[in-house]
């Protein structure tokens, strides 16, 4: 292939790379900047591109008004449902990976649950929850998120478990382990990095989820994405809160995903690409 001079080519690609990255990061930058701006800076025309000082008053308001409780709600719901989905899902994944339980049909059925649009599920669930009093409760959302994330967990963990050499399990069986011991003492330690990666992604899905939370929460267990939409009122004076709340809910996800860079592609491609 005819290439331009290597140095020039690299420089050109570099300029393009920086430009593309800045373009994609600008909205994130804008969101975070607004969260640090004073009201005067927010409502200035032309807009202020770089605030004078990084003041934290907007965050302080969230704490003062008690809005941060929605972050806490998200933490509780996302972590408990993630733990539940991981435990139940990994067990199921092990059964499918090693014993082909239920054959292809069972696996397909599990996965197909993931394809159903949430809006279709949430409506009957809502009616059900009204009857049993689970609307606006931790348990209600936790149960739903657990079920909703199960297919993902099963699918991902099945892949990670299939990567474990079967001999390790057989050796443990001959050495005197029960099936449960093999699962706990061989399979889980061998799959632990995949397990943690899957757990983080599951957590992110639950953390970011909106429709279920919108429908099934009222005042008690509102999660942070729902809280963000509560600030949309037409009056633009909630901008500071929108930005600060969004930033608060986004930072932990950024950190988690950055730490998990190595598993990212496998995690979001449903295992189609093994990193």
């Amino acid at each position: 292939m005819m290439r331009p001079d290597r140095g020039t080519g690299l420089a050109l690609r570099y300029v393009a790379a920086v430009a593309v990255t800045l373009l994609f990061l600008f909205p994130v930058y804008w969101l975070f900047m607004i969260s640090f701006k004073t009201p005067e800076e927010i409502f200035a025309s032309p807009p202020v591109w770089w605030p004078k000082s990084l003041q934290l008053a907007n965050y302080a308001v969230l704490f003062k008004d008690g809005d941060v409780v929605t972050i806490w709600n998200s933490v509780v719901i996302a972590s408990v449902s993630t733990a539940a989905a991981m435990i139940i899902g990994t067990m199921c994944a092990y059964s499918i990976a090693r014993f082909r339980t239920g054959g292809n049909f069972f696996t397909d059925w599990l996965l197909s649950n993931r394809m159903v649009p949430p809006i279709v599920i949430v409506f009957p669930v809502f009616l059900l929850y009204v009857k049993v009093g689970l609307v606006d409760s931790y348990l209600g959302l936790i149960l739903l998120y657990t079920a909703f994330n199960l297919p993902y967990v099963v699918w991902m963990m099945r892949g990670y478990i299939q990567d474990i050499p079967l001999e390790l399990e057989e050796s443990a069986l001959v050495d005197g382990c029960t099936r449960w011991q093999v699962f706990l003492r061989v399979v889980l330690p061998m799959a632990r990095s995949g397990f943690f990666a899957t757990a983080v992604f599951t957590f992110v899905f639950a953390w970011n989820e909106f429709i279920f939370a919108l429908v099934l929460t009222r005042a008690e267990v509102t999660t942070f994405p729902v809280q963000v939409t509560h600030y949309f009122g037409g009056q633009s004076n909630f901008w500071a809160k929108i930005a600060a709340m969004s930033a608060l809910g986004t930072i932990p996800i950024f950190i988690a995903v950055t730490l998990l860079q190595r598993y990212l592609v496998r995690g979001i491609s449903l295992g189609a690409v093994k990193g």
Partner: protein
Amino acid sequence: MTAAARTPYTDRNFKYLLIVPAVATILLVGLFPVIYSLILSFQNVDMMFEDTSFQGAKHYRALIGDARFWESLGHTLLFLVIALPAELILGLAMAYLFLDRMPGRQVFVALLVLPVTISPVVAGATWRLLFDNRFGPINQILGWFSDEPVTILWTIDPSFVYAAILMAEIWQWTPFMFLLLLAALSNVDRSQIEAAELDGAGFWRRFRLVILPAIWPVMAIAILIRALDLFRLFDVVWALTRGGPGTMTETFSIYAYVLGFQQFETSYTAAMSFVVILILVVTITIVLRRMEIER
């Protein structure tokens, strides 16, 4: 002979024990509501009356004549057919840009991934701030290229709402395509490309005959995931326009939400859910068959 008397392989039920909790959870929260919803769709339940008598296909018939329903499906499809190819092509172009080694590549990739991880509602909110007609930076930037101040009402003006939603959507999910295609391209056997190069194949020939077949399995999964996501499009539209102005950007998810949770047309919404599931199942089956045959 204690051994022979014992049930052979006490572990035999182990594999079923393992799946019981998962199956129970999904049946409880997944299948049961769907069946419940199927029953409801043949009754006549709404906000006022809980009429559980059998109504036949009344709601399904009504649905056929419901223009707003078909329009909402049309809007959903419109978003899908524009956003999906745009994300695919942009993602592929970006993947090519970052394919060869360059200093700091990992950092670029790590930064570019961030939009994918944001809650779609937060993404919508962010773009709402960007699109603001007076204090948002987008109109400001456009103003630099124009003589007079630009005051486009991005989320209200019918000529711009689609552009606004699509921009937010494409911004958030192009990195998803980018990441997957970058991984797929990196795994293509270089010697194959070089062999094609030596045979004198130009860029397009190489792409079509060597690279595309190699990355297709990943690309197909990426397209499938994104298509399913776009089909259920809700969060971003909700945050930006709530389906407005009027019902102009109403996706079927939003229409179903409005029907079920603002107008409490319980049975009617249930019927609608079923038609949508049916459409989805049929489409997916056809698409998967096609892909299976191609493989």
